[in-house]
């Protein structure tokens, strides 16, 4: 859905740009295409890494470890799995909802969602390329720790 919006916005802006200045528009499109090619190698590696990781942990394995009785260990697993995997939100949210309905704990699911969104181990090499080692590692480490705090808060609010 949001992808369609994105295309509409891009198309409208390119049309406006082309009416205003054809040359500049051509330059903008060329720049865009060139930067796609620029990050293509890293993207393909990320793609392969995700495929391998997701094929090793499937939904049933994950839900077995994230039951509401899984306690602290389950929370830790949830955080780690979220940090390592990279699943787009429109797949992850329904899957997380399914986990909740199948008996996973709110705390575990919230930890998983938070670290999934904020921490990216697979994309770390890309992030380092843009932000340097120190900033990228700090961001991921602090975000990982924050995921647990955020999950505690979410679980508390949901239990109210």
């Amino acid at each position, binding site marked *: *859905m949001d*992808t369609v*919006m*994105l295309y509409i*916005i*891009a198309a409208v802006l390119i049309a406006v740009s082309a009416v205003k200045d054809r040359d*500049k528009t051509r*330059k*903008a*499109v*060329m*720049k*865009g*295409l*060139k*930067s796609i090619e620029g*990050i293509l*190698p890293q993207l*393909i*590696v*990320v*793609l*392969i890494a995700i*495929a*391998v990781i*997701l*094929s*090793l942990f*499937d939904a049933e394995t994950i839900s077995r470890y994230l039951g509401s009785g899984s306690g602290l260990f389950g929370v830790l697993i949830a955080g780690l799995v979220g940090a390592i995997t*990279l699943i*787009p939100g*429109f797949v992850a*949210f*329904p899957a*997380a*909802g399914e986990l909740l309905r199948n008996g996973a704990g709110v705390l575990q*699911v*919230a930890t998983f*969602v*938070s670290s999934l969104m*904020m921490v*990216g181990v697979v994309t770390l090499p890309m992030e380092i*390329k*843009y*932000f*340097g080692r*120190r*900033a990228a590692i*700090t*961001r991921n480490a*602090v*975000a990982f720790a*924050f995921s647990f*705090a*955020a999950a505690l*808060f*979410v679980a*508390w*609010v*949901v239990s109210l």
Partner: protein
Amino acid sequence: MNKVKSLIGRYRAVIIAGLALAALVVFMPELGPRVGMSLLEQGRTMLLVLPPIFLLLGLLDVWVPRETLMRFMGPGSGFKGLVLSFALGSAAAGPLYGAFPVAAVLMRKGASFSNILIFIGAWSTTKIPMLLFEMNALGVRFALARLAIDIPGIIIIALAIKTVVPKAEIERIYAAAATMDASTPRKS
């Protein structure tokens, strides 16, 4: 000949990952279908989401002058810059790796490091289009509670990074972002 060589150099990691993937499928053929499905699914997402992001990025690069962006998101932009960075990141669609090239262009246009960090944080977790999805799947309470805690969280993470990364390193990151400019193809 040289061009081919540099192409192979840039894609070396891809070749290695591809060989590792092939080895995995050969030794554990039962994983094959799942690996294939995931590759197709994720590849489709990338191919769908990235082109419009990069086209918008090209437009931003060509049309928005450095002075303008600096006024809105530069070091002196204050609270207004913070809100704008939040809004920009939250309005985004697509996975986090899509944010890195955008951040590089924003850096080149003079956005402050704090605002870049806020932007990355917002892109990672407070995306508005995704919020509706989350409410639907996990409940309104769950989604809104997460949003409420994520806003201070993003600021805390940004502050943590700023205290840990020395000034010289930030300058180096900005210099690197300038060379990642799409209009100057990397050395070949």
